[in-house]
């Protein structure tokens, strides 16, 4: 399996950066895995295209506002993912929606696409996550490991 695990979001806007924080947390908890690229995608768009090509699976980590309690984690798969990104017209116009559509146009969209979303509480200016969201970052890092195990990719914790 060749997998891209990509956290996206803006670190300067509190909970908006949760996806990137999951990537950092994942790197702290687990050993590097052959065939798995763990990437801080920030708020980039089309530049990320080369990271997508040749992958069997893509695990995206982002905040998703869905009216759930702050910190709640939701999971989307397959067609749900581009549909979700497409219905939002976020200020980040060149974001993931265009990236996924372009990858599809080029025939490079990974066969399996999973999005793990965290419900944010606050997206004001600031570097710190809110408490509920910070707790979920750990949970989601564990969940990424579980997703990888399910794909047949062993994930080992870093020795304490």
């Amino acid at each position: 399996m060749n997998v891209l695990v990509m956290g996206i979001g803006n670190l300067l806007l509190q909970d908006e950066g949760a996806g990137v924080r999951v990537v950092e947390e994942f790197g702290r908890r687990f050993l590097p895995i052959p065939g798995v690229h763990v990437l801080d995608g920030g708020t980039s768009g089309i530049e990320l295209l080369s990271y997508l090509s040749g992958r069997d699976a893509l695990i995206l980590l982002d905040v998703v506002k869905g009216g759930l309690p702050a910190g709640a984690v939701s999971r989307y798969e397959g067609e749900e993912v581009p549909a979700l990104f497409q219905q939002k017209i976020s200020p980040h116009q060149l974001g993931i929606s265009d990236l996924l559509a372009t990858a599809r146009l080029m025939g490079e969209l990974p066969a399996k696409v999973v999005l793990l979303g965290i419900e944010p509480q606050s997206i004001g200016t600031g570097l710190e996550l809110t408490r509920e969201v910070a707790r979920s970052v750990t949970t989601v890092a564990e969940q990424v490991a579980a997703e990888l195990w399910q794909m047949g990719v062993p994930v080992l914790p870093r020795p304490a």
Partner: protein
Amino acid sequence: MSTRITIDPVTRIEGHLRVDCEISGGTVTDAWASGQMWRGIEVILKGRDPREAWLFTQRICGVCTTVHAIASVRAVENALNLEIPLNAQYIRNMLIAAHAIQDHIVHFYHLSALDWVDVTSALKGDPKKAAALGQGLSSWHLNSVQELAKAQEKLKVFVASGQLGIFANGYWGHPAMKLSPEVNLLACTHYLQALEVQRRANMIISILGSKTPHIQNLAVGGVANPINTDSPSTLSVERLLYVKSLIDEVGDFVNNVYLPDVCAIGAFYSDWTGYGAGIKNYLSVPEFPIDTKGTVFELPGGYLPNAALGQFKPITGFHDKYFAEGVNESIKHAWYQGDWDRHPWQEETEPHYTDFQDRGKYSWVKAPTFRGAPAQVGPLANVLALYAAGHAPTKKHAEKALSTVSSLAGSRVGLDALHSTIGRHAARAIRAAVLHETLEKQWTLLVQNIGKDTATFNRPEFPKGEIRGVGMHEAPRGVLSHWVVIEDGKIKNYQAVVPSTWNASPRNSKDQPGPYEASLRGTPVAQADKPLEVLRTVHSFDPCLACAIHLVDKEHPEAITVTAREVPE
């Protein structure tokens, strides 16, 4: 009666921009540009270590990561009067040039070509005729019948899937779309090829910057790239040779595809040389420093008031007071507390949202002025400055482009045509060709210099007391400046005056419109509810309102709205 249209948000740009126009008799009579997000970077940086500022500023925007990193380290170095080793300048210069070329290509093909090129029409084009057309324009090896047929098939499958995605917001079949199916097919084929080429440019950045999308190799005082001509884990000869092959590939595309395409589209839409000029005070800064002090540059920059090439005043270096003292920002029409017109070092930003008030405050963007006047920034400003300064490669590419357009259009098109909507695209393509030559030259300088020394870093030392610096950078969208005040080694004030602040500026303290606003006046609009022409002009500036919220909102799926309503006289 006139019609008021509101486009909110403008799509295929970075950031959230709203544009309002008043249309009377089929022409825009007045316009307002409004940035809809507040950037709070200065709030985050206060009290931090100036050596770390660039790590935060590169998070301002997903498109401009590299440019905000560069401007930030330069601002701190400027405050410290710190010299940079030559190797570090060359490596930074290569990053800057590779990023700008990638950005220009993506802007033309993926963010703005669809204002001029009709994808649905391309599906009907004859690949044979389109190939003949392409082969008449250049010797590009991928203008073959097979390549064009393959691209057409790819587009057909994509359009048939019903998930238009990137193509969803185009005004297909609009009366202002004029290209033949074959020209559309050729352009769409290059759209796909450009996706490949932009990866090659990105590869240069990831090799030199150690990582993308957020480069890791910068430092206040130089770069962190260890240079060892033999070791494969550092910047070795082998890696540098690979970089050279990437530079060649990218250059081939710029010279044989991008520039000829822009010339062809410019010739077919030559009426657009008559629209969209707006503010003709042009500001750019010198770029690609090739000495340690930032006084000698590969590309000149400066101020060109009222489009007068003869009155060009160069900005001579990173310490030139003409620039540092010339910039002011007004908040009369921006959502901040009060009404002042101040130098960036003196600013304080207290947000104060009112509502959209045509004659009052209506944008989060402040109104910058240079020497008291609004100024247009970007590749057009830069190319005109280079031309005025007698920069030979710029003259060569500009004259070649203008003669290609003239012969395709069947009439003489001169340098004046650049002051327009389509002219901004031409200038960007000309600049890309110039940047490719610059990139090659910086590569050669680096390779020659590492035979002599391998220094890449001078350690910064912060004095007690207050120091001030400005970091200037001629970024893909124009003049970027970061302004820092440091006290006892900590950041006391930080302001970023970004290119789109200049161009998307609201009215200033004298109520003069900003460049977007001025350029829209006089633009013809065939259908008020499908304002393609307005988008053409706004997109030609390559807007980037750098704020990059990334949240998926399931609760309130906003729609792109274009509203048109009648306004009584």
